[in-house]
């Protein structure tokens, strides 16, 4: 699958897929990487070391700092794959230097699949 580079870098890992948007501020605990938003489809799951796949970000712009905090605390996702990256996630992945690609048909990705992300070329491969 070919998309657009948001932040370059290579990563491989297990996919964790959310069909709904993710609000990082108040949605994911930057100390543990666990999704804490009540009622979110990923509530209770950990994003650490995974390829985090979701349509787009939502909520407070402070979410960018939460993405930075996840990486700084060693519990960040290995890469982020979006349908459409908006400013909150874009700012977060660039500040945190997490590989990120958007413009991907994420409906074709399932949780648990092994993904290889080459963000500089904007590609996501299933392995």
């Amino acid at each position, binding site marked *: 699958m070919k998309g*657009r580079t*948001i*932040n370059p870098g290579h990563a491989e890992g297990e996919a964790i897929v959310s069909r709904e948007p993710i609000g990082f501020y108040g949605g994911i605990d*930057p100390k543990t990487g666990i999704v804490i938003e009540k009622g979110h489809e990923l509530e209770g799951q950990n994003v650490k070391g995974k390829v985090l796949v979701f349509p787009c970000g939502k909520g*407070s*712009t*402070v979410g*960018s*700092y*939460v993405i*930075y*905090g*996840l990486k*700084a*605390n060693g519990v960040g996702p290995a890469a982020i794959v979006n349908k459409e*990256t*908006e*400013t*909150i996630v*874009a*700012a*977060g992945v*660039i*500040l945190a230097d997490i590989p990120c690609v958007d413009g991907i048909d994420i409906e074709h990705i399932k949780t648990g699949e092994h993904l290889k992300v080459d963000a500089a070329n904007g590609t996501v491969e299933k392995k």
Partner: protein
Amino acid sequence: MYLTNEEEGIIEGEQGEVPARMFRLLVRLGDIYGADRMIPVGSVQVAGVSYKSIGDPGTEFLEDMAAKGAKVKVLTYLNPAGMDLEDWKTLGFPEDFAAKQLRIMDAFKKMDIIITATCTPYLAGNLPRFREHIAWSESSAVSFSNSVIGARTNREGGPSALAAAILGRTPDYGLHIDENRKPDMVIEVEAGLEYNADFGALGYYVGKQVKNKIPYFTGIGDANTDHLKALGAAMAASGAVALYHAEGLTPEAHLMDTQGLEVIPVTDNEIKETYAKLNTGTDPDIVILGCPHASLREIAALAKEVEGKSLKKPVWICTSRVMKEAANRMGFTDTIERAGGNVVADTCMVVSPIERMGFETTGVNTGKGANYLPGFCRQNVVFRNIHELVRRVTE
């Protein structure tokens, strides 16, 4: 996007690691929004200042930037902090919170950012001119500068505003471009508007209707900058309105063509219904005015309301440090304090930890505050004009 030789050099790290990283951020945001070049900005206002908002991740990020020697290139102000930076102890702000907040302010100061923390920078020494490109964050300040002053800014997030300050540039898209400043609908106001709170109720209602579109108001008649500040703030909070025009009142209104646009009428009924909807409590534990930060005129009005009275509940009016200095000199602060109230600077109810300070119901005269307090601060809200609020805590 077209980049100059100098800009290419910044990306390659000629000015250091921090400018390179922050410029990559601006270029990427520009790509996402279809900008074809960078433009210089005259001033910046950075959001993400309160420890309550940014927490440890934000604090550590800012300290890291300051430690790496990041400096801003243009006049840069801050959004409100989580507490009064001088009187926090007297006002009962928690010690652990204060320690973190002071670390954040220190990091900003090291980057040469003016640590005047306010959502009304235009009342505190950061006043853009008509058509000047700026990069501001706080939604009511964005609305006021775009609409009432006619400056040009998108609504920046904390990191993109900081990047704009460090580079002195922003990508050219959105409200920086003439074509994108045209109205989408006409709001025909047939309601009587007297208090700032009435303008807040109007703004709350219209924001819900138009979401992130550009409304063009007719029928407002006369309004001062406090009224327009309250109107814009409420629309930015209940919707995401970053620019509005008002016939005969705002500087670009006469340039706009409203032929054929959808017309939404607003009567006294809608205003009344909005008050009913936003009132979720009856007896306030505290009354907080000054959202957005009070002008000197608003502080004077409170002083007049409470003069010689004894307030049974805390009454705060939030403002910038600059306005508070003027209020001190005029004796307004003294009058308010003698009645039992406080003039609180640098912070606001939305970003301060009032839910940790024992308050459950807050009285406000602002559509914006009424919009945010239930979620951000778990408060019941009493939304009334200044006169009725003061009456409730004196009788």
